[in-house]
């Protein structure tokens, strides 16, 4: 398993390089321009100057190679410098955002905490809600619980987050005034009061996202459970006189988890991708907002770097999913 993992990771390098090239060309080909952010009052010659100073007018291969160098050489050196206090990266050009003219990695590091807290906890919560609901709905298929669960999860899935977010704000922030409608990213949790404040401001965005995630995962869980409940080994297990709990929770669940684990593991990178709309609605300003902003502003270095990190996570979690698969399903061997 270990050599398999290492080998997959090594194989990932050419894959990722290829992905980075495709992303770069794609973003470059997209018909936006960083100039769209500059007010119309700025005359054309000044615009050209600004674009030149960003390096946006260089040929595409020059920019791509520069980005590769910055991503794989300069940024790690900067990181080493930061950790060990050395000065290897002195004088080297880091990846700079065109929008804010600041190092892309600093911005990402700044955004990471709120994204992980809000989107991450909503994902965990979503999974925690989805699994029991999915299991029980399948076990008691067509019971009122199942019907209700189906109904809620379908509504949760079919109603977009901008809508649920808005409704929550109107109810809980405007009318009841229980929670703030705007997420305060500068809030530091130092004592009980600030902890309460943090929880309060997280409740609404987390609820919105958890509902959405739970809706999806519970559907997969339910269907997978149903598939397995119909298998013969379940009948055999029951015939053996095993308790219902053991049959369902040990035999069926273990087998049903196989496809669901894939779905869950593959969903994890989306945490880092942020939740574009929800972040916008509650002004969480996490990585999703960062990406969408950068895309709208055609901030190529930022889009490229973020998407590439995202690609790395996807590849890694694909691997994680495959390994989990191997653990859960002994028929699949990797060595």
């Amino acid at each position, binding site marked *: 398993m270990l*050599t398999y993992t*290492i*080998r997959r990771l*090594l194989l990932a390098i050419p894959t990722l390089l290829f992905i980075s090239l495709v992303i770069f060309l794609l973003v470059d080909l997209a018909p936006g321009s960083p100039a769209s952010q500059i007010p119309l009052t700025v005359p054309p010659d000044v615009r050209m100057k600004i674009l030149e100073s960003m390096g946006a007018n260089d040929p595409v291969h020059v920019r791509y190679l520069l980005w590769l160098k910055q991503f794989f050489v300069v940024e790690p050196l900067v990181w080493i410098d930061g950790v060990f206090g050395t000065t290897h990266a002195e004088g080297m050009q880091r990846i700079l955002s065109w929008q804010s003219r600041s190092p892309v990695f600093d911005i990402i590091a700044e955004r990471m905490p709120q994204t992980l807290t809000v989107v991450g906890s909503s994902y965990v919560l979503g999974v925690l809600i989805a699994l029991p609901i999915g299991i029980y709905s399948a076990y008691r298929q067509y019971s009122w619980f199942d019907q209700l669960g189906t109904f809620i999860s379908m509504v949760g899935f079919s109603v977009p987050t901008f809508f649920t977010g808005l409704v929550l704000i109107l109810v809980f922030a405007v009318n009841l005034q229980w929670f703030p409608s705007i997420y305060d990213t500068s809030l530091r949790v130092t004592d009980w009061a600030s902890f309460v404040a943090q929880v309060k401001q997280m409740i609404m965005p987390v609820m919105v996202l958890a509902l959405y995630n739970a809706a999806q995962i519970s559907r997969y869980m339910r269907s997978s459970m149903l598939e397995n409940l119909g298998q*013969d080994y379940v009948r055999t297990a029951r015939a053996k006189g095993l308790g219902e709990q053991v049959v369902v929770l040990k035999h069926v669940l273990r087998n049903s988890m196989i496809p669901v684990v894939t779905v869950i593991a593959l969903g994890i990178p989306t945490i880092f991708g942020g939740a574009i709309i929800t972040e916008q609605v509650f002004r969480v300003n996490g990585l999703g907002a960062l990406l969408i902003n950068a895309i709208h502003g055609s901030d190529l270095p930022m889009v490229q770097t973020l998407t590439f990190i995202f690609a790395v996570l996807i590849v890694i979690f694909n691997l994680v999913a495959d390994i989990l698969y191997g653990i859960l399903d002994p028929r699949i061997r990797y*060595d």
Partner: protein
Amino acid sequence: MFDSAPRPPLVQVRDLKMYFPIYSGLFRRHSGDVKAVDGISFDILQGETLGLVGESGCGKSTVGRALLRLYEPTAGSVVIGGTDIASLDSENLRKARPQMQMVFQDPQASLNPRMSLADIIGEPLDEHTDWDAQKKLARIYELMDAVGLNRKFANRYPHEFSGGQRQRIGIARALALKPKFIVCDEPIAALDVSIQAQVVNLLEDLQDELGLTYLFISHDLSMVRHIADRVAVMYLGRIAELSPRDALYARPLHPYAEALLSAVPEPDPSLARRKERIILKGDVPSPANPPKGCNFCTRCPRVMEICRQVKPELAEVEPGRLVACHLYSTSPDAGSTGATEAKERNQQGVSP
């Protein structure tokens, strides 16, 4: 058996090898092989049942599957009815499939849960005939009659049947194309004892009726004794002994066969008292790394020095009995010849 007129062999297996490669390290270098089947040769005569016995993991099922080319054999030839199955291209292989079929171990797992009985039995017909629906249906019903399934069941699905019935479906499917040769891969292992006899009897009846040739793979020695004409005993990818059934059961020659058969319950109590169980010590070596010399040398109660150095060849030591053991090497230079793998293409497995 040997008194009857000589029948031509239907299946000729020569030096069949089935290695599963082991890749290791970061770059997946080919670092070795699991030698599941390591150079075996035997013939199966027309209308005969060859039993293939051995402990689990000795490569019995692999032989069965390699014979039908469900696995791609590493080396060797498998001639069935005159064509070398092991070297056919995929289209010709497909055309050759009808003459050889398989009955699987797990009747539950070998039937697609989403196909009805008629569809399952009819699948071979769909693949290999251009009959119209009516004709196919007629054949399906005929097959169902033949294996003793009620025609009313045609629309039912595998989960609605008992284990024995499912195995009948599997047999009907195997018979659909009127094959000459059927590999029965532990067909009764997953069945209740009461059902086992029914299925075995069915197989025997069908053999008589249709003149089928069986390779009957099993670890159940009593059942093999019941059905087989000749029996091959396999150990760690090689055949230890290939003898007519009665001779083998009466007096096994190879020490492994002896040990294996000593575990068979003896129906005759007088004989049973005389019999001593031979308990083998140690574990079966890994097929990825079999011992040098005789495969069995690590556990053989009568091991000699030569056994650790030289691989014994399967040789006819008594009429009709082939044994791969140094105890029976008549030739004084057996050691040197046996050591070389030069005599790969031995014809010793061929019975006259």
